[in-house]
């Protein structure tokens, strides 16, 4: 998976995907100007424009007349750009984590398609712990959050661990097992919270949803209005997670073994590394990342699960695109997650200006763009071929 091309191939891939989807917009709107306007509207909807409005948003320095430009300008609650950026960053966190879940398994030579199931397992565990535990044990808020998050991480690790264990012991292909586990989790979750299910809310018999997470277990919102889904403190987990990912892989024995198995399982086995054990551990760690993402989403902004959410969520699948585009590196995953979070938020019905482009179309368009990026990244050969042909042509012109 770690092929040549560095930063150029992923960038070209993104440009190519946006060009092709630009043709789709062009066919829809009919002229080039509207196509560019649509992309600008998506960009504004993502809130990333906030960063380019330097000087418009500032914080006054105490005891002076100076103003400092600062990303988390707490005075800037009302601005549309700020509210959009909050949405993008809320989505960025789970995408980083599910991206890491896929990337970590990749580094061990495993294709973890189960990020979605592991994310949902974490979400389901988080809802169950946060709603059921207070019935038997009255914990203070912070402790309840910790227990919930740890429980969700274990749930994700356990689910992914099954796939890793089966790969390590009987050689069952992880792609097949993780796909099956995805759907098992989706339907078990639908059973839990669906009509007549064991954990369906008691308040409304006709609503297929879980109970609400108690207020004390909700993550604190530090930017924006909590009632309008402001940015919660879960964002402070994303960057340490990226650092941790890099540390585990590059600075621990475990990471060394995982990478060795990923490069060549036979050579690793010959070198005395237990391949099966590393398959299990790599998947379990991957599942831990995805389970954490589920807990953060539940405690940060979802607060409950319903069966529509369980069946239509795509976070774990987008994680595959994040890992592929980010080339399984920490920095790459962080950046790729930001791109996909911005794309998803910018094309959402809530954020995209409907006078410029129909948001319902744009939502599907972002799915097409994600698909194209996965397709082109998978074949970075395309880009390399073009580069090689260019290189080959250059000496010829020199010789002539």
């Amino acid at each position, binding site marked *: *998976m770690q092929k040549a091309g560095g930063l150029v191939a992923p960038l070209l891939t993104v440009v190519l995907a946006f060009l092709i989807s630009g043709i*789709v917009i062009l066919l*829809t709107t009919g002229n080039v100007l509207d196509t560019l306007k649509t992309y600008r509207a998506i960009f504004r909807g993502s809130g990333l424009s906030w960063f380019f409005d330097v000087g418009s948003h500032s914080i006054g320095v105490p005891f002076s007349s100076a103003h400092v430009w600062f990303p988390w300008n707490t005075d800037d609650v009302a601005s549309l750009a700020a509210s959009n950026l909050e949405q993008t960053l809320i989505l960025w966190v789970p995408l980083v984590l599910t991206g890491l879940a896929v990337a970590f398994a990749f580094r061990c030579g495993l*294709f973890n*398609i189960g990020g979605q199931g592991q994310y949902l397992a974490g979400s389901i565990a988080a809802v169950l712990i946060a709603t059921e535990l207070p019935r038997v044990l009255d914990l203070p808020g912070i402790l309840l959050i910790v227990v919930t998050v740890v429980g969700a991480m274990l749930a994700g690790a356990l689910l992914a661990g099954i796939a890793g264990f*089966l790969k390590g012991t*009987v050689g*069952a*292909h992880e*792609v*097949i*097992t993780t*796909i*099956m*586990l995805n*759907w*098992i989790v*989706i*339907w*078990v979750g*639908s*059973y839990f919270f*669906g*009509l*007549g*299910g*064991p954990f*369906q809310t008691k308040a409304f018999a006709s609503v297929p949803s879980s109970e609400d997470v108690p207020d004390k277990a909700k993550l604190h919102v530090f930017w924006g209005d909590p009632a309008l889904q402001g940015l919660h403190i879960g964002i402070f987990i994303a960057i340490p997670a990226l650092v941790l990912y890099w540390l585990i892989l590059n600075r621990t024995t475990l990471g060394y073994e995982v990478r060795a198995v990923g490069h060549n399982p036979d050579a690793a086995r010959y070198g005395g590394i237990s391949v099966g054990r590393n398959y299990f551990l790599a998947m379990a760690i991957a599942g831990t990342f995805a389970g954490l993402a589920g807990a953060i989403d539940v405690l940060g902004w979802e607060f409950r699960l319903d069966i529509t959410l369980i*069946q*239509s969520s795509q976070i774990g*699948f987008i994680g*595959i*695109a994040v890992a*592929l585009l980010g080339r399984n590196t920490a920095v790459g995953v962080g950046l790729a997650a930001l791109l996909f979070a911005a794309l998803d938020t910018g094309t959402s019905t809530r954020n995209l200006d409907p006078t410029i482009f*129909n948001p*319902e*179309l744009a*939502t*599907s*368009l*972002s*799915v*097409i*763009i*994600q*698909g*194209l990026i*996965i*397709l082109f*990244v*998978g*074949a970075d*050969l*395309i880009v390399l071929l073009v580069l090689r042909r260019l290189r080959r042509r250059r000496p010829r012109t020199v010789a002539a």
Partner: protein
Amino acid sequence: MNRLPRGWRAAGWFGVVLGALAVLLTLPPIEVRTPVVPVVIGLFALTVGIGSLIRGERRVGGFAVAAGIGGLVLGYLATRSSVGHLEATVVWGALLAAMLRYATPLMYASLGALFSERSGVVNIGLEGMMLMGAFFSVWGADVTGTWTLGLVIGMASGALMGLVHAFFSITLRADQIVGGTAINFIGLGITSYLFVKLYGAQGTPRDLSNVPDLSFGFLGHIPLVGGFLDDVFGHLNVMIWAVIALVFVVWVVVFKTSLGLRLRSVGEHPRAADTVGINVYGVRYAAVILSGMLAAIGGAFISLAFVNSFTPNMIAGRGFIALAALIFGNWRPFGLAAACLLFGFSSALAVNLQAYSTSVSTLFTALPYVLTLVAVAGVIGRSIPPAADGKPYVKQ
């Protein structure tokens, strides 16, 4: 496995039959009401299954053990529930007809994937290909006014997706799992986009030209079993009959013709196939494109013959069940057909189980995935893919 005494294999199948019998006796029309009967027969099936299992018949023995446990549990539950509920849930004629209806789209997609994977290209893009077929056949039927042309256009869209998958996985040698994942995204994106763009809030037209059902009136006049046969086979869709025929055709083509031999040799040992002059890339391209076409017909069955409309993401995971059926059926036409029928039956039963409880019916939907997981885990025999499945081939 041929070294082993045939007796234990036969015993294994006997166990499977016993397990089925344990449930059947408790259901209409016989309706044994004492739990002793299913428990005793189920335990007997279990014993036979374990015996067959230790004698080395892992696959059949495993099936017998599963059938024994399943028969015991389900049979016991059936004796505990009221006769009224039972008769509402288990209406054999309707249930078997529904089973065929649910199994049909899975069979088309799964047979298609058989070609692709037998040629050595993993196709997890079935879901996206089925979605393409579902949308474009409806669009085609709407524009042209006839379902036949609708099907042709649907097939063409599937072939196009197959071509994309083939180009990226064969010519560019990209990772086939990545390519399949991309196909799923793109299929979902394109169909949802066009649906909103072309049909919007009104949805697809109600007066769509649909694939007709075939009526066999004479079945009802057969004495004794006539009513039952009429319920099951009397009013099935043309496409259901077509897929049943297709299973036999595929078996003949893949295992009894030189074309099939080429296909399988490319999937097992491409280098050897290349050496004897088989065009590896050509065979793989054809297989993957055919796979896309068949998956698209499966999708078209759902939209054009089953629910008579298109809604975004309407395939809802059936592409993955079709993939599961291929693996569960050990990459063989009759094996995958049996798996599709099993999964179809569980879907049909899940719908009827709503009479008992919606939640249990939901849980039942997970059954195909659990069974496949158990199958690949090697508890029930082992599912072994073609040797070169998923490996790109570099021509030298």
